[in-house]
């Protein structure tokens, strides 16, 4: 019990430290190096690509259903976004189709 409480507190502390760190280090806007400002602009695009891969990392392409439902629904989500430019709508479309595929088809 005591160990568990310490562990949860520690996870919380380390997570908070990671999230706070950039803001503590670069507290003063005049001291932000150019390279960090550049990364600030470049990272949103790069990170979102990384997160997409991160979400799909548990797919096994060698065993049924070979990641087919995930790939179909990811493509459909992207297509729906291009069509309507609405994040919420495309997420709903992709998710509902995924639920149908995973529960009824595969």
């Amino acid at each position: 019990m005591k160990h568990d409480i310490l562990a949860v507190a520690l996870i919380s502390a380390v997570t908070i430290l990671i999230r706070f760190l950039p803001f503590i280090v670069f507290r003063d806007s005049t001291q932000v190096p150019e390279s960090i400002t550049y990364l600030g602009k470049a990272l949103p695009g790069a990170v979102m690509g990384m997160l997409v891969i991160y979400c799909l990392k548990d797919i096994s392409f060698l065993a049924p259903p070979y990641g087919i439902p995930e790939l179909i629904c990811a493509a459909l989500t992207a297509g729906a976004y291009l069509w309507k430019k609405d994040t919420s709508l495309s997420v709903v479309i992709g998710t509902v189709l995924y639920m149908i595929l995973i529960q009824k088809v595969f």
Partner: protein
Amino acid sequence: MQTESNKTRTGDLARAFKATLPVMTGYLVLGMGFGIVMQSCGYGTLWSFAEAVFIYAGAMQFAAVELLRSGASLMTVALTTLAVNARHLFYGISMLERYRDTGRGKWYLVFSLTDETYSLLCSDDALDGVQNKTLYYFTVSILDHLYWITGCTAGGLLDQLIRFETTGADFALTALFVSVFTGQWKGTKDHFYSLTGVICALGCLVIFGRDYFLIPSMILTVFVLMLHARRSPDEA
């Protein structure tokens, strides 16, 4: 004048709520999943609630279940947290400018910068037409946190039997990232940043495996981006 500012405020709040709907779906489902797993390992609702409030990091909370159950050493706990959550450094770096003048509550915004909240706030077009940006940041951040707390707590309370079939609903978060990624891709002519993220992550996933690829791909991404800036300094 008064009604005018009330109207724009209501507009911002409504927009923030609408923007968080995909996160609501994903967080409620994933949070409930977490609460149920915790319950099955002998950790009750209070534990799930406390983790949702104070840790507020989905992947890490799932990893923590195993750490708690196996009685892992505090050193292991700290290092695992570092490895799983290091990607949050990136979010902080890209939100430095946006969060600069957000006032006294700024540290709450920083604390609550999860993958999902970040993806709602990091794109330029996310803030098109928003009147009060600080209010918008706070509304999105607080709503997302509340969804997560609600999901985790409900999962601890709900009996397995009265759950409806939610298998696959957690795909909402994948869909959210795919949709934001698509928006960013459409929004710029130069796809170098997006491609760098995808290719570095894919390469490292193949080389290091799914449990260890995140940190190598972060390092590689920064390296490639810096190299790119050096070769075409006008963009940096």
